[in-house]
C-alpha cells in the first residue's frame, strides 16, 4: 500500500544547530513531493516541492530538501535552526493512480532549545 513515513514523532535541536527531518514514501513511481510547516494554531504552509529535475530543491525560510530515488526519501534540511522554526512539519506525496491522490505523513514536531 502507498504510504508516507516520518520516522521521528518529535525532534529537539539547539538554536543554531543543523536540522534534518526524514521522510520516506512507498510507491512504485516517483511522486510529486512536498514539505509543509504548521505553526501552533495555524494551517499548513508550503515550504518546498519537487516535481522533477534537480533533486536538491530550495524552499522558503532557508529550508532545502533532497530527493533520493534509490532510497525513496525526501529529507528536509536546514543548516542553522532559529527559535521561530519550532513547529510541526509534514511531508506529503501526490500519487498518480489513475487520478491524483495526496498522502500526508504523520508529522514531526520540532522543538528548539536556546
Amino acid at each position, binding site marked *: 500500500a502507498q504510504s*508516507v513515513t516520518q520516522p521521528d*514523532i518529535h525532534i529537539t535541536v539547539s538554536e543554531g544547530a543543523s536540522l534534518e527531518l526524514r521522510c520516506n514514501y512507498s510507491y512504485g513511481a516517483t511522486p*510529486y513531493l*512536498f514539505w*509543509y510547516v504548521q505553526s501552533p*494554531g*495555524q*494551517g*499548513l*504552509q*508550503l515550504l518546498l*516541492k519537487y516535481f522533477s529535475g534537480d533533486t536538491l530543491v530550495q524552499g522558503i525560510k532557508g529550508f532545502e530538501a533532497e530527493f533520493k530515488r534509490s532510497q525513496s526519501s525526501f529529507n528536509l534540511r536546514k543548516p542553522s535552526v532559529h527559535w521561530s522554526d519550532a513547529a510541526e512539519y*509534514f511531508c506529503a506525496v*501526490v500519487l*498518480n493512480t489513475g*487520478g*491524483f491522490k*495526496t498522502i*500526508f*505523513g*504523520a*508529522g514531526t514536531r520540532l522543538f528548539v532549545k536556546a
Partner: protein
Amino acid sequence: DVKVTQSSRYLVKRTGEKVFLECVQDMDHENMFWYRQDPGLGLRLIYFSYDVKMKEKGDIPEGYSVSREKKERFSLILESASTNQTSMYLCASSPGLNTEAFFGQGTRLTVV
C-alpha cells in the same frame, strides 16, 4: 496572496447537533478539500471537490457530508455530531490535483 478562510477558529457543539463548517477561498481554485487532523495520524482526507456541485469521498467520509454551491465556498457538514468527531478540521484549495494546497487556519471542533 491566496487566502483560504474558515469561518470559525473554535467551536463547541453538543452530541447529536448538526454542525456546519464553512470555508471560502479567493483564488478561483477549482479544487477544494476538507481534512481532519489528529495527533499521530497526520491529515486525513474527508471529502474533496473538483468543481461546483461535484464531490468525491476521501478516506474517512463516514459521518460527514459536503456542499459546494459556489466555486469559492466549500462546506463540511456533520449530520449528527459525535464525540469521536472532536478534532482539528482543515480546509484547503488548489489549482490542480497534483499541485500544492493552500490551507485555512483550521477549526478546532469539540463535541461534548
